[in-house]
């Protein structure tokens, strides 16, 4: 194991050796390593966000045929840093009549709920924060903490717009959790474990190939989960001025800001992990550093699609959002779950070709059928005129 092939593990071992050399007890050593790992990971995530912000602003600029940030530094690379400085130096205004604890707890929860997800992600074959046997469940649970943050913010900042925004977000999150959890069961079935490492390891064939429809649903749910366009009813500036984070200023607002971007990227990571085979790729086993490369390439693809959607699509109306979830996504998710379970039992595990073919056929059938159904449901046809037909005379 050299630094080139697997830098993280190398460093970890070196550090461990060093600390052990200082004569620490095993427990403390373990604890310390975990602590360091957590700190490093959190910092990495936070700093990564800065880059994300730049990418996003640049991207949206290009999409809208503006140059985007281009003043500070090359290609405006340092623009986010400038914004950071501005946010740091702003005054922290606390409105009157806020509920103090929830008001201040909300931003922390928002960011924490995102970063905690990173703790279970397998970054490559050797590197992962911790590999708990119920990673996927953990992710869902942490999502609920994020909801907590939103509701605290909405309630705490004693503002009806904020409350409305939080209600909206909450309704959206809870609703979209249902199909998300349902389709998350499919990778769990296919890999037979809830630990993310297992999920990744078992993807000799990417789950997206085996269950494209599930992947689609999961992607949509992710977009809804981090409430951005077209699901950005939460901070619908035109209706409820910026929603939850209306009463926040300065660094607290920055937290919300960071949480938003980081959440988007984390969701891309999750999707890449669960459906795109995570760090898997040629030679990723021998040279774990390649794992990072593959992982982040896949993530970027997903993330870019996400941005693309955000830039291009208009905002849903709230009833549309709800209807879309409860009338389309959830039934779809149920059907795909059942059928995939059946097919997974039917198809022998031995032949990948057969499995892929079978699942492909299944998904195509489902997709076509559902789209036909939708086109029938959603098409507005005028109500047919019902004329009373004359009753036949001599007929008992």
């Amino acid at each position, binding site marked *: 194991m050299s630094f080139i092939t697997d830098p993280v593990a190398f460093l970890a071992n070196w550090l461990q050796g060093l600390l052990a050399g200082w004569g620490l007890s095993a427990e403390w050593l373990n604890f310390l390593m975990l602590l360091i790992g957590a700190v490093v990971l959190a910092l990495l995530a936070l700093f990564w966000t800065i880059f994300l912000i730049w990418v996003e602003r640049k991207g949206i600029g290009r999409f809208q045929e503006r140059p985007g940030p281009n003043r500070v530094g090359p290609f405006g690379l340092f623009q986010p840093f400038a914004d950071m400085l501005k946010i740091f130096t702003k005054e922290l205004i606390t409105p009157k009549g806020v509920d103090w604890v929830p008001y201040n707890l909300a931003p922390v929860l928002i960011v924490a709920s995102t970063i905690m997800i990173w703790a279970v992600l397998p970054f490559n074959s050797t590197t992962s924060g911790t590999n708990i046997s119920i990673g996927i469940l953990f992710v869902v649970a942490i999502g609920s903490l994020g909801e907590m943050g939103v509701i605290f913010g909405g309630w705490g900042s004693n503002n009806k717009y904020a409350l409305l925004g939080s209600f909206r977000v909450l309704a959206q999150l809870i609703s979209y959790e249902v199909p998300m959890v349902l389709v998350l069961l499919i990778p769990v079935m296919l890999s037979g474990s809830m630990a993310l490492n297992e999920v990744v390891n078992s993807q000799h064939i990417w789950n997206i190939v085996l269950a494209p429809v599930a992947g689609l649903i999961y992607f949509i749910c992710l977009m809804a989960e981090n409430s951005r366009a077209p699901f950005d009813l939460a901070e619908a500036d035109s209706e409820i001025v910026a929603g939850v984070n209306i009463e926040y200023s300065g660094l607290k607002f920055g937290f919300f800001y960071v949480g938003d971007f980081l959440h988007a990227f984390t969701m891309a990571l999750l999707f890449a992990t669960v459906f795109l085979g995570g760090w898997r790729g040629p030679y990723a086993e021998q040279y774990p550093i390649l794992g990072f490369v593959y992982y982040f390439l896949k993530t970027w693809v997903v993330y870019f699609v996400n941005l693309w959607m955000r830039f291009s699509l208009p905002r849903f109306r709230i009833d549309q959002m709800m209807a879309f979830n409860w009338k389309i996504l959830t039934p779809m998710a149920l059907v795909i779950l059942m059928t995939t379970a059946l097919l997974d039992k039917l198809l022998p595990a031995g032949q990948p070709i057969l499995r892929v073919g079978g699942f492909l056929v299944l998904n195509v059938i489902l997709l076509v059928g559902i789209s036909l159904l939708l086109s029938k449901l959603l098409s507005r046809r005028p109500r047919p005129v019902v004329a009373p037909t004359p009753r*036949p*005379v*001599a*007929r*008992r």
Partner: protein
Amino acid sequence: MATEILIWLIPLPPLVAFFLIALFANRWRGLSHYLALSGAGLSWLGSMVVFFTAISREELSKNPIISSINWLPTADTWLKLGVQVDPLTVVTLFFVAWTVLMIFIYSVGYHNYGQPLGDHDHPGLPPHGAHLKDEHGHEHRVPSVEPMYSRFFGFVALFAFGMFTLVLTDNLLALYVGWEIMGLCSYLLIGFWFGKDSARKAAVKAFLTTRIGDMFMLIGLVSLYKITGSLSYSQIFSEASLQLLTSNASPIMGLSWAGFIGLMLFIGTVGKSAQFPLHVWLPDAMEGPTPVSAMIHAATMVSAGVYLVIRFFPIISAGWVPGEALTTTMTVMAFIGAFTALFAATIALAQNDIKRVLAYSTISQLGYMVAALGVGAYGAAAFHLVTHAFFKALLFLGSGSVIHGMEHGVLHTGEEIDPQDMYNMGGLRNKMPFTFWTFLIGGLALAGFPLVTAGFWSKDEILTGSFSGGFMAVFITLALAALLTAFYTMRQITLTFLGQPRTHSAEHAHESKWTMTLPLVILSVFAVSVGWAGIPKAFPVLGGLIPPWFEEFVGSMIESGHGEEVISHSLVPLATSLVVSLGGLTLGWLVYSKVKSGQPDPLQKALGKIYSVLKNKYYFDELYQFLIIKPAFWLATSFTSEWLDRSIIDGILHSFGRFGLWVGRGLRNWFDIPVVNKTGDSLAEGTRGLGSVLRVIQTGRVQQYMVIAIAILVLFGTIFFLFSSGLL
């Protein structure tokens, strides 16, 4: 093995069709008749397969195809249910399958499938026709579809099931079952248009009359079971049981058991196929739709009667050696048959209703068969059964087609005339060519037109049989009947088709749909060709060109082949049949070709009083009315109802009632009110009082209840704990 299973399966499709129609399909006409047709078609297919496999295996009569299962456990043995295919079954199955299928197809057209619903048709009445506007706007009346279309097909399907069962079964019991099923169906179908009073009466009449016969048949059946201890043919007709039957004497007028049972079964036949004393129901049965008439009087029911006696010929003729004196039963059969033949023929002379003529001709033809059996011409009877089934079905369907055409004319012109009266017809041969030619073929076959038609051969057989058997009386009667038959057949044909139209309706009549003509054509083919299967060897010129397959095949049923011992084929019967048929035909032509509209029947002048006697069918209905029905009514009303029921039985019952009333009042006054009610009321009062006391603690506050509950829990918990740990 496969054949057995197939035989088992033959009767089923119509039954299934019946249930499907009755339960599910009775709202959809097309579906129901497709069901019925497919049922009949399947049975037909099976029957054909069985037919060809059966005739292709030799010595069929010695070892018939039999398979049977245990059905009903009796005391120590089983009533077996099974199928048996021997030559008789085979030929019967053949014509039954064909005619049934044809009649089914025909019914589709006859009930105007595809025509609009009638303007004021009602279930239970024949369709009155519907007004239809064509594209030019002026409306005209067209036939309307039968209101109870599906019901009809359900019934005929059941009917077909009954017949197939009766033919295919291997024991008398199942035969009786099929027999009764057909009785029921004939009741239902004759009364199909139960809106008409006449139809209702006819249905009841047919049912009761046949029922008389069935009772006797049941007696015979039971006594047969009593003697032989079995009902399956193979055991009944075994040498042993025949011996048993002939040797023992029955208590009734010195007959042997065989004779007695034969007589009983024969009376059953008399009822079923309308022989002399019980013939009255058959003409009235014409009230039903024509396919039903064809079904009952050609294909199935009456044939069933004859089939029965043919089937039981061994018992009937037990103890009879060919060429010697007949047994009592056979004598009875011979005379009743011959008499019926003549008698019915004479009545047929004077009928104007086209269907009634055919009905009486049926009776007389059946008389032929019975007579033939009576004189022991076994094969001839079977042969005539087959040929008659074909040409009589043809004739009935043809008459139905004629009536249909006439109805069309009536609807078109709006005349108020009876479309079935032959005097309203005439000159239809141009209007409805198919019907005419086929009807002509049928008629000639009935009249026994020499050499070509099937009827000739079979009748000739019978005449030969009776002649060579030396029963001159029978022979002459039958010959006379044959003459009359030819005569009235010609009369019918002439009045209906030849000459000039006598009404506007007749002018506007026109040919029926293919669904009705196709069966006619097919049946007419059979009406001609079947005869060739039975040309006797000894027949001059033609004899031996075609081997007399039928005689050998069916005749082989009777050991030593009854009836076929006449090798020297005398020419007398042949000449007779030639003469009578041709003579009758020409006579009929001469008499009736000139009849104009409105002018009475030529015979009326010729015969005078006798004519009216004939026209009123020898006043038989009136006779029965006077002799049987009136006394029965008197007994029922004045004796049973008035005296026995009302006065005596009701009196007793009423006294019981009064007694009960008295007891009840007593109980009420002295027990119920003082004791029971008081107790109940006091209980109720107590409960209410208690409730009004307890309601105070019911505050409606959940928490309070819980507090109390927990407090009590803690209290008792501590007490129990202290006790258990011995601290208290």
